[in-house]
């Protein structure tokens, strides 16, 4: 049973948050989305209204800009937002300088050609690319003179194109069935031409030459990798291709349950909307696993003011929020927006991590999934800690708990190791800003030859040479997945400072069995995938997700300790595994953890093991631990000795002398105090012990010791007092 949309208990892994952005302003002539600037644009007769939807959906009125009157086919702001490009017809694009208001236009020369579209690029050689049926025009836009200069023309015949700014990837479809593709990446790193490839279309008897439509191909950018999803209606599948520098590789096919499909990417999770079935399926392709994260579930609207409502009603009628889930007017914008053009609403897709986490009992993989997330960081953290706590309290098998903790520690240690490269990114972005580049999203394409062993179902006409000779930019290095922002500015620094995702990639390698065959590192060290520039924020974001050993101690072990006291053996084993993972990850445990562990061992009368663990340094020596041992050793002499020895070994001279004295070894303490110049212990304490032992000789010895080595001692009250006691003893 699924609850009504908007009700709290509804089962769903993805949701849109109410209220949406309302853009149903009268007089507007359609809605356009500029994915480079993340502007939602609504032209009116003589103005352009636009909302900036960079991080959150704005609620206020739109910005506006005057433009010339005329039809509008598409609108794109330049990347520095100082100019607007407006496609007026299939033969003309108008460019308008927003400061001066001057306009110029670019028209098709030949009658035979039609303009398909245009976009702005941050590629170093040109600013605007216009796609025509006969090919590409690469143009430079000169703002001062408000003129366009043709840099290069590339001749092709194509039926349609696909471009996303996120991937910087332009796909040009050609051929009878539009299944032959040529690809370019126009990134800040330069222009990279992808080899030609063909997408697979299954045929059926009714139609043995189906034509691939632009709406059936989706470019998805997750984890900085570029994928392409192509709908195959006959086969009822989504073919998934991954782009590499010199090859496009089909990696798998995702099943579909609807002939209409939309694709979004939320926080590196691919959401495949099965529009007819009104459900969404989530995939996390990080480990090249193409099994869904969870079962298909409906999309939820959260935060609706209305109360429970049946999903059926919502599907049929206009509801309180003024729209229909997966309604006719829904347009899916890159990467995670939905524009309801019928009702003039803009929704943002969210991932319900809590629900995802609750839907599976495989804690380690849920934690891996969570640790890879970059949105809603505090929730990820709380959720991760809660999961670890729960599996401990539920006394799940130690191996599973160990795995779960290893996931958390690995991601933390990756972050620690990244320390150097984070600063590298910062430096790079500073350079970028100073050189007047756009504020974000500078992208680099990283392509590299796939290994020869790779199965390549896609025909790659140009890859033969690519296999042998690597492109000059390609570096042999450890990084696979993601190119960072730094890449185009300082490529060498990027390639030596590995990206964190890649470290996870490598360190988890042994743990995943299903994904190894297609794992990049399994394919040879020179493999480098096509990457977009979206991993920039990984470093700083990772910092939010990663859980330090201290946090693990405070938010897991301390909290579960009381409940586990009945049978501490399980918790001891868990902590042992935690220490092991930490040692593997090169992390240090907080001394308090050792104190806790020792207390647990003593509680279960396992003193012998305490001694063993102290001697083989599993319990790392510290003052805290030494004190704990002495404390626990009140009833166990050997443990007490361990603590006292630890004080000596740690050179905690003052504490050691005090401990010796406390045990009555005052002569030894005195000798030690003299050797290590310990002056914090009062002479009276030594004298007191000597008196307690009722030994005249020793009292005399201690007295003369202090008289000799402490110059002012003879003037103190202690001196006269104990002198008196001594004379009485004799």
């Amino acid at each position, binding site marked *: 049973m699924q609850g009504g949309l908007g009700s709290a208990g509804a089962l769903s892994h993805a949701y849109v948050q109410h209220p949406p952005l309302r853009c149903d302003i009268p007089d507007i002539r359609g809605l356009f989305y500029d994915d480079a600037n993340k502007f939602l644009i609504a032209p009116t007769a003589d103005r352009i209204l636009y909302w900036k939807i960079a991080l959150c959906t704005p609620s206020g009125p739109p910005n506006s800009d005057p433009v010339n009157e005329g039809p509008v086919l598409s609108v794109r702001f330049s990347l520095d937002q100082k100019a607007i490009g407006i496609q007026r017809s299939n033969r003309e694009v108008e460019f308008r300088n927003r400061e001066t208001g001057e306009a110029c236009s670019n028209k098709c020369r030949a009658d035979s050609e039609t303009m398909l579209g245009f976009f702005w690029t941050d590629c170093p050689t040109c600013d605007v690319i216009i796609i025509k049926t006969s090919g590409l025009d690469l143009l430079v836009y000169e703002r001062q003179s408000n003129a366009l200069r043709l840099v290069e023309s590339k001749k092709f015949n194509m039926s349609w194109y696909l471009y996303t700014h996120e991937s910087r990837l332009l796909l040009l479809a050609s051929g009878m069935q539009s299944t032959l593709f040529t690809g370019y990446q126009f990134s800040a790193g330069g222009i990279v031409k992808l080899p030609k490839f063909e997408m697979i279309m299954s045929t059926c008897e009714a139609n043995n030459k189906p034509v691939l439509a632009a709406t059936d191909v989706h470019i998805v950018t997750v984890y900085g990798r570029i994928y392409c999803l192509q709908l195959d209606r006959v086969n009822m599948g989504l073919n998934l291709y991954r782009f590499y520098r010199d090859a496009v590789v089909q990696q798998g096919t995702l099943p579909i349950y609807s002939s209409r499909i939309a694709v979004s990417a939320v926080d590196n999770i691919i959401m495949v909307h099965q529009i007819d079935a009104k459900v969404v399926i989530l995939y996390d392709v990080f480990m090249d696993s193409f099994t869904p994260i969870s079962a298909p579930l409906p999309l939820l609207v959260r935060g609706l003011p209305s109360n429970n409502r049946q999903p059926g009603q919502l599907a049929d009628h206009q509801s309180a929020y003024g729209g229909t889930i997966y309604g006719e007017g829904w347009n899916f914008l890159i990467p995670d927006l939905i524009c309801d053009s019928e009702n003039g609403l803009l929704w943002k897709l969210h991932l319900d991590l809590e629900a995802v986490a609750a839907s599976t009992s495989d804690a380690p993989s849920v934690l891996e999934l969570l640790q890879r997330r970059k949105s809603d960081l505090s929730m990820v953290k709380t959720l991760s800690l809660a999961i670890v706590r729960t599996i401990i309290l539920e006394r799940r098998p130690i191996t599973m708990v160990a795995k779960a903790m290893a996931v958390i520690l690995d991601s933390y240690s990756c972050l620690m190791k990244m320390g150097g490269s984070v600063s590298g990114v910062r430096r790079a972005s500073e350079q970028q800003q100073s050189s007047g580049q756009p504020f974000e999203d500078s992208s680099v394409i990283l392509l590299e030859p796939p290994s020869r062993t790779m199965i390549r179902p896609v025909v790659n006409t140009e890859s033969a040479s690519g296999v042998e000779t690597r492109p000059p930019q390609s570096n042999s290095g450890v990084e696979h997945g993601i190119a960072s922002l730094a890449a185009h500015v300082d490529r060498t620094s990027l390639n030596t400072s590995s990206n964190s995702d890649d470290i996870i990639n490598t360190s988890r390698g042994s743990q995943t069995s299903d994904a190894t065959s297609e794992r990049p590192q399994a394919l040879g060290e020179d493999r480098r995938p096509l990457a977009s520039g979206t991993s920039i924020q990984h470093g700083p974001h990772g910092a939010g997700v990663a859980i330090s050993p201290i946090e693990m101690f405070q938010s897991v072990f301390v909290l579960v300790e009381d409940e586990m006291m009945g049978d501490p053996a399980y918790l001891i084993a868990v902590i042992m595994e935690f220490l092991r993972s930490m040692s593997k990850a090169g992390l240090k445990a907080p001394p308090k953890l050792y104190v806790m562990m020792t207390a647990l061992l003593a509680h279960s009368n396992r003193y*012998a093991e305490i001694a063993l*663990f102290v001697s083989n340094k599993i319990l790392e020596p510290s003052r805290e631990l030494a004190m704990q041992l002495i404390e626990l050793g009140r009833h166990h002499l050997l443990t007490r*000795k361990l603590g006292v020895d630890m004080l000596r070994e740690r050179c905690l001279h003052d504490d050691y002398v005090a401990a010796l004295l406390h045990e009555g070894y005052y002569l030894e303490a005195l000798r030690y105090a003299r050797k290590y110049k310990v002056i914090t212990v009062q002479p009276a304490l030594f004298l007191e012990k000597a008196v307690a032992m009722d030994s005249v000789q020793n009292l005399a010895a201690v007295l003369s010791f202090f008289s000799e080595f402490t110059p002012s001692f003879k003037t103190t009250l202690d001196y006269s007092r104990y002198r008196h006691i001594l004379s009485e003893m004799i």
Partner: protein
Amino acid sequence: MGLSSTDGAQLCVFDLRRGQQEGQELDKILFFHPTDCPILLQLSVIGLCEGIITFTRIFSPEDDCEVIESDRHSHVFYQAETDIWMVLVVEKTKDSESTLRCAALQGILKESHSLFTMFHGPIRSLLDRKPSAELARGHLHTFITDYLSDFTVGKKLQLPTYRDSLKERGTVQMLTVSREVALEVQSLATVLGSCLGNVACQSIVLFEDLLVSTTLSPDDTLNLYTYAILRLTPRALSNANSWSYLRKGVYVNAGSTSSSSNGAATAERPLQREKLSKGKDGFVAAEFATTEVRGAVPLTPILWFQQAEERMYLCVYQHKSLTILLLIPASSLINGEEGIAHVKRHLLENASENIVMVEQKLARGWGGENAYHVGGYRYLLVDPDRKISRASPPGKVTTLSKDSLLALNRLREEMDLEKSRAKRSDPTRDKDFEVCIRAKNNAWVIAKITRGRELYMALEKGGETLLYASTAVEKFSNRYCEGAFSTD
């Protein structure tokens, strides 16, 4: 008292609560080695011992008589259980070869008794179970005979001499491992502990003849460790000469025990060497001869633990140099053998990977038999609290001259006396001692006891001054004992 046996030594066990009426003296004797010793001689030895025990109690009611040195014999006493005494009688010869140390001999008695108790329970409880002592005698006979077989050379018992003064019976020798490996081993111990599901299993892990980890108390660890070194480690199974202090001499068959007069209850003979072997599945099994069996005998020895007061099955698994002793509480195994088979399966399924990995890591870090040799030093380090020792490898100790060894033996004897004296005056307090003796041939013989820990060493071809000796100790202490013996 004419002790005219050709055998160099006699070992007897007797119960002072039995045979207190004239004519029934024979009833006291629970065990006598050699078995073929005439009854009259046996009675005379035990009569003398009993006399000495009674006599010394007049002066020292608290502490037992430990040794009586006569002209031609040494009698070493050990009260194993209340009123149950074990006495070792050693013949003195003129040559210095037989120079013995009383505490070392007592160690043999202690060790044999604690091993016996581990397998059969206390002697007293056996006597209580069968007041005719048939059960106790039967077990003692087979067990101690099997135990002594390790000391038998030819027809004589070869007991520890002054040459063994850098060895300490009744201690465990540990393998030093890095923290990383220790954590791996501990993780393995966790897996082993879960072999039975909800009831935790105890385990001991050995590498070669050294202890790596244990979840048992020091006493039980020591007993099992001793047993493993004697019979279970790859070395013990292959019958090779161990470099461990525990095994010496060439193995001689324990003899025709089945024909012994006591006859009964000879089924369980955990120390019977030829019955133990490693199977194809990696488990060490005891194949007791079925002809001797009365009723069903489990394939696995059953142990009895003092600490836990619980009977346990012992399951031994071996992978290369790694030996794992898994203890399964008998109470939690309802259907004995089937249950054990289940545990074994569980172990193979869940722990194999860990075992292989741990073995590899240990083997990689293993420095060989001479791993703990310290150049220039011949040493013995003992921590009596934890029952742990470490010593120069025997091969290196043999390079010491006879004079040095004799001097060391003397010194150890002195220290033993000092220790027991200090213990008598204040058992809770550690007393520190330090003795450096200039021996013949420029050798230094040193003993140092600091806060309960003991260090004995011999330095040959050393400097002449006492400063040299104390510096050598200081250096050794700082480098190998974390400063435990450093002068305050």
